[in-house]
């Protein structure tokens, strides 16, 4: 009799059955190791924040301290990071937690990248380092309430008024959108009908961000509903490098692959948890791992996990070679979130009732995967994007 057993399901096994990452070089491994260190730090505490839907800002800042947020971008003053290292870092953060994964994706993937691509020299000097180190939190305000997948039809407007821009509109699902930092706001200028980007201080009058309540996944990051009501920003808040929506697409396209890496991280966490559980939980006097049906399910998960690793590795090679096409990244993203979902259903079930408790991690990852599974559109829409590429026919409408 006593307290329920602690199965230590967060223990790192680092499963890599096909040695996909066995020959990672020393530079990349250094980044990877820092990310693993971060994972070890937060795994014991993040479930609590997730449970209460609290956003642990200190854990975001900690990613900045550990230089985990540059996502492969060359930021003056910081050590360079290859696409592979960036992927491995993303994988490890999500292996620890999807909310922190989302925070890194916003801070490094979207905001830092927007600045690196489109900011003026002055803007770069002012913002690159603070964003890369998470001294300032950044957010990326593109999605609108009525536009999920077809985000090209932005309704938020930016109108020039003398030396200022006046911005009006609504944004939804914006990570870090109510965290006291800056927001990159994407808005359409009615005069030339083109999309432009603006660096908006969240303290600016007219800017209101309210965290969305009642989320069933990635609960440990606040995503905001944002209202922009006559928000006035100076002319030099505009990102000079942006000329149309194509520039936004470029940012999204560059970060798409990292969703695949995140899914891989979740898959790895759940697989390792299930394998740990199968060895430590006994039934009928023997470890679960001695049961045929349990072994078969572990192998099914292993197949999925291995495929995810291979997809990430190959796409990242192409990325490093500069030949990755956006549709290839889409395939990896589509495949990996689906595969993670399949791993999740098996792993959760293998833990039976214990699988429903946050202390055992798997259910948190399962629910976080649900959140990233429909990034950039429902599964159907994503399938049709790939289907168009394959067949040459558009079947959306």
């Amino acid at each position, binding site marked *: *009799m*006593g307290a*329920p*057993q602690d199965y230590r399901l967060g223990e790192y096994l680092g499963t890599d059955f096909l040695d996909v990452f066995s020959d990672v070089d020393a530079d990349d491994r250094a980044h990877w190791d820092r990310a693993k260190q971060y994972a070890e730090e937060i795994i014991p505490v993040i*479930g609590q924040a997730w*449970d209460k839907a609290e956003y642990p800002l200190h854990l975001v800042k900690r990613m900045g301290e550990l230089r985990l947020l540059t996502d492969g971008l060359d930021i003056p003053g910081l050590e360079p990071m290859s696409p592979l290292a960036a992927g491995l870092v993303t994988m490890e953060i999500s292996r620890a937690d999807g909310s922190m994964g989302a925070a890194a994706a916003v801070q490094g993937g979207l905001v830092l990248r927007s600045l690196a691509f489109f900011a003026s020299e002055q803007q770069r000097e002012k913002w690159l380092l603070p964003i890369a180190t998470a001294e300032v939190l950044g957010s990326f305000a593109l999605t609108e309430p009525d536009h*999920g*997948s*077809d985000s090209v039809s932005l309704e938020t407007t930016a109108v020039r008024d003398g030396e200022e821009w006046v911005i009006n509109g609504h944004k939804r*699902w914006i990570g870090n959108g109510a965290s006291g930092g800056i927001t990159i706001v994407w808005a359409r200028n009615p005069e030339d009908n083109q999309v432009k980007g603006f660096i908006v201080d969240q303290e600016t009058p007219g800017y209101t961000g309210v965290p*969305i309540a*009642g*989320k*069933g*996944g990635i609960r440990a990051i606040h995503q905001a509903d944002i209202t922009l009501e006559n928000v006035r920003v100076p002319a030099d808040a505009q990102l000079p490098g942006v000329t149309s929506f194509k520039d936004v697409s470029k940012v999204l396209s560059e970060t798409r692959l990292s969703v695949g890496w995140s899914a891989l991280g979740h898959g790895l966490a759940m697989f390792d948890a299930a394998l740990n559980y199968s060895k430590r939980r*006994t*039934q*009928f*006097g*023997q470890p679960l791992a001695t*049961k*045929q*049906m*349990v072994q078969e399910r572990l192998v099914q998960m292993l197949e999925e996990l291995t495929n995810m690793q291979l997809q990430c590795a190959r796409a990242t090679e192409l990325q490093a070679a500069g030949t990755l096409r956006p549709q290839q990244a889409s395939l990896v993203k589509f495949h990996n979130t689906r595969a993670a*979902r399949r791993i999740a*259903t098996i792993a*959760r*079930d293998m833990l*039976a*009732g214990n*699988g*429903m*408790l*946050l*202390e055992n991690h798997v*259910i*948190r990852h399962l*629910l976080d995967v*649900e*959140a990233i*599974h*429909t990034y950039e*559109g*429902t*599964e*159907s*829409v994503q*399938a*049709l994007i790939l289907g168009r590429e394959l067949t040459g026919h558009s*079947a*959306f*409408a």
Partner: protein
Amino acid sequence: MPPVMRGESPVVERQVGIAHPEVDLFHVEHLLDDDERNKLHSIREILSREIRPAVGEFWDREEFPFHLLPVLARAGLGNLVLSGHSRLFIGLVYAEVARADISLSALVGIHNELILGLVHELSSDQQKDRWLEKLKNFEAVGCFALTEPEHGSDIAGGLETTAQRDGDEWVITGAKRWIGAGTFADFAIVWARDAADGQAKAFLVETDRPGFTATKIERKMGLRIMQNADISLNGVRIPGENLMPGGEGFDAANVKLRDSRAWVGWQGVGAQMAAFEIARDYALERKQFDRPLAKFQLVQDALSRMMAGLSTSMALMVRLVQLQEDGGFQMVHAALAKATTTSSAREAVSVARGLMGGNGVLRDYEISKVFNDVEILYTYEGTYEINSLIVGRAITGQSAFV
């Protein structure tokens, strides 16, 4: 968009051209007589108006809505199994309760299939006088304390809780885990091994006795309304008459576990009803590329698969209740049905959630709650694997549990 927290489909009703707005595509409820069908409709009405809209916030906070117990009682849910109703009626009611809320349907199911039945069949007249009427009105609630911390499905071989006879009393010591309603029940039916003869026996243990402690299991991501408890029995003393006389050995428990597994089969049906109607409403309301999602082939395919799972699950349960009434009902039927309808429910909520995109993870859209609750349906009363092996044994004659 307003939260979708209800038991009807006003969206569907507004649409023209939907040949089958109801979820019961194969008209199973027409197998009931008029009286029972009317009663089913009125229960559905109560559930959809008074229960379904009220439970979300309690689920969110992992709290139990005690003020809803009288509503359940008014709907007659405190006394289904002793009421003389047909098994099909009782089953369809279970499905309707699950459609409204799976936690409360767990309460209703355990209450009827395990507690009410066992007290009625096995307890002393004195205990019956004390509890039976109160139970029927949900003025009293019991819990069923079988599972132990280190024993899930292999409990029969692994009961560690002991009962020691001491004069006119029994002294019970041990631990129980995952006990539904354990935090607020008035009594527990505790299964313990008699230290004298090694037999498993059932005892009615009032929860206010010294040495009885129930601790709520926190941070549970499904059935968050249902309060599961870790129960500690530290030398709890009960009078000799609290031994449930018919409850020796596991035979009695096995009969009840068979019946309750069938009830979970109905929960699987109800969960699919909820998932289907939530997804269809969403597909009709939500527009993409300027037309309703429901016009997408891929969305129709998804809805059609959900409907197929729901229809086959219902049809199977119809056959099962016929066997229950004809006397041909065995554990293998319950095991197969439970595993089948709950795995079908699991697929349904996964499809529904995927179809709803980002909104699918918001509690406001209800599918998030159903999704999490279904995970527990799939697991409790025997995981898929265990039920599969029960069926496997019946159809091959070989046991492969160990």
